[in-house]
C-alpha cells in the first residue's frame, strides 16, 4: 500500500502519543496507586454511628501505616461531622468518609479532593497537606433545601 510521507509521520506521531499517555496512566495507577476513591468498602448506612471508625468522626493519629492521620468524616443532611478540624502542616492524611442519608459531595475547592459520598459506600483519599491555611469542605451534590449551607473547615496549621 502506498502511503504519503506525511501520512506516515502523523500516524507515528498519533500512535506514539497514545502510547505515552497510556503509559503515564498505567504508571500512575499501578505504581503510584491512584484509584477511584470508592472502590471496595461498603457499610450499612443505617448503622454508620455504630460502625468503626465512623462512631468517632474527626482526626486520629495512627502508627505503622503509610499515613500519619486518619480523618473521618460523616456527612448527613445538611452538615459534616466534624464541622471544623485542625491538621498539622506536612502530615499525610487518609480521609475516610461516608453518608448517613442521601448522596452528598465532599470537595475541597482548589485541590484534588473531590468525592461523591453515596449511602452504603465508604470513600477514601490519601493526601499530604503541604500548604498552610484554611480549606473549605463543601457539598457539591444537591442534597436538599440546606445544601448550600453544608460545609466544613479544615485548618492546616504549623505544629
Amino acid at each position, binding site marked *: 500500500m502506498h502511503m*504519503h510521507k*506525511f*501520512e506516515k*509521520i*502523523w500516524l507515528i*506521531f*498519533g500512535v506514539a*502519543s497514545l502510547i505515552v*499517555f497510556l503509559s*503515564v496512566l498505567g504508571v500512575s495507577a499501578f505504581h503510584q496507586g491512584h484509584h477511584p476513591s470508592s472502590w471496595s468498602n461498603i457499610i450499612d448506612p443505617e448503622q454508620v454511628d455504630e460502625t468503626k471508625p465512623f462512631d468517632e468522626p474527626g482526626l486520629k493519629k495512627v502508627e505503622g501505616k503509610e499515613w500519619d492521620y486518619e480523618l473521618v468524616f460523616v456527612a448527613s443532611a445538611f452538615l459534616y461531622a466534624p464541622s471544623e478540624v485542625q491538621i498539622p502542616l506536612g502530615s499525610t492524611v487518609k480521609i475516610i468518609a461516608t453518608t448517613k442519608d442521601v448522596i452528598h459531595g465532599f470537595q475541597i475547592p*482548589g*485541590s*484534588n*479532593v473531590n468525592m461523591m459520598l453515596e449511602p452504603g459506600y465508604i470513600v477514601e483519599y490519601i*493526601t*499530604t*497537606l*503541604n*500548604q498552610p491555611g484554611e480549606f473549605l469542605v463543601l457539598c457539591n451534590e444537591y442534597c436538599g433545601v440546606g445544601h448550600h449551607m453544608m460545609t466544613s473547615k479544615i485548618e492546616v496549621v504549623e505544629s
Partner: protein
Amino acid sequence: MAQTQKSEIQDEKVEKEPTLLGAFTAVMIVGLFIIITWAGVFILFNQRF
C-alpha cells in the same frame, strides 16, 4: 506511439500525488493542542494536594 501513451500515463500518476502540506499542518496543530492541554491538566493534578 505506444511509448508516448506510456509516458503520458506516468505523468498523470505523478500529478495525482496529492499535496498534503495543509492537512499535515492541521493534524500537527491539533496534535500539539491535545498534548499541551493533556500535559497542563496532568501537571495541575500533580501540583495540587
